[in-house]
């Protein structure tokens, strides 16, 4: 594990097709061998790149020698854009839990993936948390991802049909008391999707993993190590 002074962290500008996004790039002083993109929760549910899950993953990955990019979706923090009529969008989201412009956040995820690939030139692991799972999944066909990590997805709300377009190892992490999705719903969905895949259930961590961030990061690092994606780690399969 690298100490903080061996990790470089910088605020970066990501040039998207329509707007510039602000991101956080964390990487080791030494040569990295793998990169990870972390897509955060829904902006209209308080999601930004400083979210506790996003932040803890970014720190953990960089401390283990990976390049980690997290970013704010359009209209969040220093990122340009966002819904033109924000109150109307919030109103629609309050009523229906969705609104038309969410697709633009999927595009933002694609832009961040492309930038990270261009900057690092390294194999890329795609990680999503909550809404970020869907925004990552929508970009999978074009991704050539080395691995996919989904944390607390909600397959009851979002369609994850594109998961099957990518044969990379998949890790699903979820809680046993997530208000967005029951354990049976998530396991039924997991059983229905393609191999190779791994499922880890964490106890009492709700949807938010507050106070469980280290445990969560440990699970993700373990999965990456098992697949030879961490510097110095040997690959090992452990399908669920």
């Amino acid at each position, binding site marked *: 594990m690298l100490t903080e002074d061996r990790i470089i962290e910088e605020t970066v500008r990501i040039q998207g097709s329509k707007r510039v996004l602000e991101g956080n790039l964390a990487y080791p002083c030494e040569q990295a061998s793998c990169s990870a993109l972390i897509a955060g929760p829904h902006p*209209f549910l*308080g999601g930004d790149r400083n979210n506790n899950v996003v932040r803890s993953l970014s720190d953990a990955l960089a401390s283990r020698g990976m390049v980690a990019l997290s970013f704010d979706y359009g209209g969040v923090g220093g990122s340009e854009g966002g819904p033109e009529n924000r*109150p109307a969008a*919030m109103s629609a989201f309050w009523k229906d839990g969705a609104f038309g412009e969410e697709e633009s956040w999927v595009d933002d995820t694609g832009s961040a993936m492309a930038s990270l690939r261009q900057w690092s030139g390294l194999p890329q692991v795609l990680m999503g948390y909550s809404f970020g799972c869907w925004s990552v999944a929508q970009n999978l066909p074009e991704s050539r991802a080395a691995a996919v990590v989904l944390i607390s997805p909600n397959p009851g709300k979002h369609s994850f049909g594109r998961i099957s377009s990518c044969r990379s190892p998949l890790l699903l992490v979820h809680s046993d008391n997530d208000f967005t999705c029951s354990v049976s719903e998530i396991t039924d969905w997991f059983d229905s999707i393609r191999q190779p895949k791994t499922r880890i259930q964490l106890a009492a961590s709700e949807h938010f993993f507050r106070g469980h961030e280290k445990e969560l990061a440990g699970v993700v690092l373990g999965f990456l190590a098992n697949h030879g994606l961490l510097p110095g780690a040997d690959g090992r399969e452990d399908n669920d």
Partner: protein
Amino acid sequence: MTGEHVEVFLTGATGFLGHYLLAELLNHPRVRCRVLLSAPIFKSSDRLAELLEQIGLDLMALIAEGRVVPIEGRLPNDVHQPDLDGVDLILHAAGNTTFRSSGSGEPGRTNVEGTRALLSLARGASVPRFVFVSTAYVCGDRTGHQEESFLATRPSFRNDYECSKWQAEALVWNWGCDTGIATICRPSILFGDRKRGRATAMKGLYVVAKATDILARAMDEGDETNRHQIPLRILGRGDATCNVVPVDWVAQKVCETALQRADESSVHHITNPDPPTHEEVKTWLEAHFDIGGGRFSDATWPLADANHYEDLFYSLGNICLDYFRNGLTFESRCAESIPPEHRLIDRASFLRCLNYAQESNWCRAAKVPLNLRPPAGGIDPAWYFECFLPAAVPRSTVAKVEELTAIVQYTITGSVGGSWVSRFERGLLMETLVAPCALEATFEYRLSYDDLVDVVSCRKPLQEVFFHGSAEMFGDVERALKMVPIIGEFLREFPVAGGERSTTSPAGVAC
């Protein structure tokens, strides 16, 4: 009727009610409005544009879209029949609210002669429907339950305004008997809108509030009398009521009535089924201005032995006589949809209107800045939830989130804490009460006092306090999460300036 469109001719559009009526009419996509504006039209249209801008409408864009057509003219003499050709409906809201007749001929000139002239033009242009905005107080000094019907027998009036409106009603009703369909809408006393407490004319209850303000200012200037024991006789009874109604609600009901199909002439009271009492208004005003001592009295106006404080209080005239009535209720079909537990004007909405009135310097300031600084002792949660939120939320993005309907509980832990519940309805903050109360929260935020201070003064984002800190959410967590960015917008728009931590427990709140 022109195809799918309803062609409306509106008078009084630059008035307090009139511009809300125009906004409400334009909510109906089929409506096109011809708006009568006095000469010079560039000046009156500027005024209308300014008023509409304050409620989120762009007059120039509406004109460009053909939804509003300004017409220069003035009642009773300077309106011409071609202006009414093809009109489906006249909504006559122009009125003069002068109580006592003066040398100018008002209020009779506008209210009676203006209506007479417009009815004549309507007859000539074969306009099928005439909607007249009157007043609930055409009943004069009658008491008891007033039915929604034309008053064929002339009542005894308290002032010339009431009389002029009754005369105009008679003209309209007769037009309805021999020419077209007449609809008479009788609103009671207009008060600020439900979103911001915004008002552009401050009569009625505002005069009582202003008189209280005058008295409070005198006490602020070092009067030796205990400000909570002012020897003030308030003329009237505590159980008398003041039938105030939010201006935007009136506009909504008038337009609903006007645009509904009608086969015969009718009368509609647009009144408050549960108006505040004199006693309630007194309590709210005393708490707001931090004064007390007034007592109800059956003394008669003018007070022969008025003391210094009564001279000040009544310097604006006999402020109570015209606005508070005993034993008067109104039949009102349009008020039937109001749930009995919801009051059109309650303490929170009254204070919202009062804050707006003061910030606008009783309508003298062109634009209203929000200057709500925390009390000298630091941020008091009671002040924040009971005073700051009701004043600021109506002007914020929250008020534009029209689907937002929820009951939110905020529990602040620690010695300077407490619990409050806010009821939001379609983006409007309807009330904030101290918990426990009858409102059942959809969800609850629980955070420490220190976190509250950091959040409301924008030192920490709410997300950080929740995801990394000590805040908790209970109840419908998904709704609570959805509310986070809405609150985030509000906090960015209205941070508490100079917010310091309080070290003492709140001892009650005077907004």
